[in-house]
């Protein structure tokens, strides 16, 4: 008899749903178990959500870049701290056949506030030539002309709302508003809003001209010292060849990456090099362990409580597999019962945290599948351990 026949013989839809009836008969224990497993699933969702939110926020800016190749210093380990490099190196690429234009970017963090209004906040300023469209964000591209006036900037309204919420609010109700650098050395005027999303390295983003960025962020950035260099190619240019040539040209001095490589490098840093990936991974494992212990305890107690009944069933002629299947079905029912509310609650928490933090936590299909699989797996493993107790169900003992 093959596995399919065996399963059909064990799971007969005409039979009594014994596993469900046993769970239903003890609603308090059922609720406690579902709460425990649901909490574990919630914990896993949160950890995975923070992890993906971090990775997404760290790469949102890169995703929006409109470029074929990027020059970046090898000393820049992540997007939170750029090592500047000479702009003249970027210009060398202009002489290459197939390169249509190069665009220097100045990126750094500044601290700003509004006396009596906005509290001190950390802002990532991205400065570039306002005649160029470097980001695939229509709200930015439609307001670039405003940036040509010194110290006029655009503000990311998807920033950390606790810190920067008043900015977007004030702008929407009163129009342009002025913020001052925390060291009072300069000030800037917010002339428009856009939506990009905050990151773990700053509360929000500012878009400005390179002159404004140099004025506000000096001495962190200096003229002629850039953070990123964008290289755009002619439509028919061979990107691989040009990248290869530029790599040999710059050697160890600069990295020449495609946009995809830049995103991958950033993700790898946060996932594998920084402590974030380890912390979130550990949190996910902790969730698994908590859930596993809860399910095991529930199933073990359940099997112990029903041991005499199971022994009687065996004495009447029910097979070991039948009773094993009852326990496994119970574990799967517990997993499903806990997984559905945990998913809904997590989706709500994601939405709330996104609104507050500006970091997008999305309930995606891959997360749902992963947490669902882990929840069912941990229930299956816990039941596999718990059913060892079934060996004690000796039919002769019912005498």
């Amino acid at each position, binding site marked *: 008899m093959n596995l399919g026949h065996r399963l059909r013989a064990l799971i007969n839809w005409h039979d009594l749903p014994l596993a469900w009836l046993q769970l239903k008969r003890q609603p308090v224990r059922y609720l406690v178990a579902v709460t425990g497993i649901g909490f574990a699933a919630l914990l896993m969702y949160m950890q995975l959500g923070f992890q993906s939110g971090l990775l997404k926020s760290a790469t949102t800016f890169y995703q929006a870049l409109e470029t074929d190749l990027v020059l970046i210093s090898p000393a820049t380990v992540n997007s939170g701290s750029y090592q500047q490099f000479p702009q003249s190196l970027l210009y060398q690429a202009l002489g290459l056949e197939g390169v249509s234009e190069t665009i220097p970017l100045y990126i750094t963090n500044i601290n700003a506030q509004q006396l009596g209004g906005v509290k001190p906040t950390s802002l990532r300023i991205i400065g570039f030539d306002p005649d160029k469209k470097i980001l695939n964000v229509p709200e930015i591209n439609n307001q670039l002309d405003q940036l040509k006036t010194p110290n006029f900037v655009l503000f990311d309204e998807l920033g950390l709302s606790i810190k920067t919420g008043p900015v977007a609010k004030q702008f929407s109700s009163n129009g342009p508003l002025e913020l001052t650098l925390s060291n009072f050395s300069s000030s800037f005027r917010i002339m428009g809003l856009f939506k990009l999303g905050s990151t773990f390295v700053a509360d929000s983003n500012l878009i400005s001209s390179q002159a404004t960025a140099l004025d506000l962020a000096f001495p962190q950035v200096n003229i002629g010292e850039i953070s990123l260099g964008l290289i755009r190619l002619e439509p028919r240019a061979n990107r691989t060849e040009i990248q290869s040539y530029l790599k040999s040209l710059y050697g160890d001095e600069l990295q020449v990456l495609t946009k995809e490589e830049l995103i991958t490098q950033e993700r790898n840093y946060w996932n594998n090099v920084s402590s974030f990936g380890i912390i979130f991974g550990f949190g996910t494992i902790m969730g698994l362990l908590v859930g596993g212990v809860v399910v095991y305890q529930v199933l073990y107690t359940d099997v112990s409580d029903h041991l005499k*009944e199971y022994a009687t069933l065996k004495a009447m002629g029910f097979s070991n597999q039948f009773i094993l299947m009852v326990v496994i079905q119970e574990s799967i029912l517990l997993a499903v019962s806990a997984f559905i509310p945990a998913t809904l609650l997590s989706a709500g928490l994601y939405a709330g945290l996104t609104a507050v933090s500006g970091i997008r936590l999305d309930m995606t299909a891959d997360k749902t599948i992963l947490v669902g699989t882990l929840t069912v797996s941990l229930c299956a493993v816990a039941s596999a351990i718990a059913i060892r107790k079934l060996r004690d169900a000796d039919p002769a003992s019912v005498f």
Partner: protein
Amino acid sequence: MVHNEDSNVIVARGLTHSYGEGELKNEILHQLDFRVLAKEITLLVGPSGSGKSTLLTLIGALRSVEEGSLTVLNRELLGASEADLMAVRRRIGFIFQSHNLVASLTVLQNVLLLLQLAEPDPSKRMERAKDMLEAVGLSQRLHHYPE
């Protein structure tokens, strides 16, 4: 009394059973020979500890036969597989000292559960279960729980 082999329901030859090992080994049944015929009513009497329960659990295929021969419903139980023991159990009506009904099932569901073994046609189970419970005067308590 004249009988043929087919009328034998239970046949024991040299049936021996003991508990424990080594010095603690306690032989409960020693070289037991008997047969029980179809339609025969047999009473088993003896003092406490004489092995009545052990013999019944061996006949009921609840325990494995260690030594000798025991044939129940034409199946040899010495060296029988778990599947053979299970098949014998399904053909024997056993009343235990403690009922051990499934506490989470109603009276009706407890009977329906057993009928999963005895009645292959699912559509007939409900009717049979109700008939059986009515026959023993429990038709008013179909949806009660054992405890």
